[in-house]
């Protein structure tokens, strides 16, 4: 199982904030592909400028292997406080 979180405007694009995906995708790119197949608009937003992915609350770059139970968050450019 993989927990997926959408922050900021991504939440509005998808219409959800948090969901679980089971079975867990093997990689971050597999997760992106899965989300994009389900919702092209979300897929486009996830590929947008400045959108970062965090795995278990640490920002990652590029592709990465996922383990069951990982929490993946997609972070649009931050607004600041």
């Amino acid at each position: 199982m993989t927990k997926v979180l959408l922050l900021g405007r991504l939440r509005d694009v998808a219409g959800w904030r948090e969901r679980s995906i089971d079975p867990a995708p093997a990689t971050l790119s597999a997760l992106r592909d899965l989300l994009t197949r389900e919702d092209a608009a979300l897929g486009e937003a996830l590929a947008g400028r400045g959108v970062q992915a965090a795995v278990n609350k640490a920002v990652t770059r590029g592709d990465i292997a996922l383990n069951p139970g990982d929490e993946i968050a997609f972070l649009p450019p931050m607004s600041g406080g």
Partner: protein
Amino acid sequence: MTVRVQTEAFDAGALLSRFSAGRTGSGAVVSFTGIARDVTGGAAVATLELDAYPGFTEPAIEAMETEARARFEMQDVLIVHRHGPIQPGEAIVFVATAAEHRRAAFEAADYLMDRLKTEAPFWKKETGPDGERWIEPREPDYQDAKRWNRTS
């Protein structure tokens, strides 16, 4: 670490009273209170909503506090930041710094606000009569934050 990220409204004055109490060794306490405005950039704002990522937002702000403590001769610091829906006139953020001398207290508070305004992991949505809009830091915020690079 004295960073609190919360949905509850807070009274800046009550935080300042508690922060200042019994400080016989600190000559200077500076506070900053950021308040939700009813008009930003000419547009009316009915509600501001800050999205935070619990467990991610706090450590990012704690890292700013650690850096501020390393840069300035501070004795204490308190950072309280709201998320969730916020009404105009309500406080969004409160930063207090205590130091022996006022220059360090002013600079540390100023520095922390510049960092918070540009780098704190929040996503901000303003809702007004014209609908909703997600906002990003303004150019002056980036300029303010850049000031600190010169002295590092």
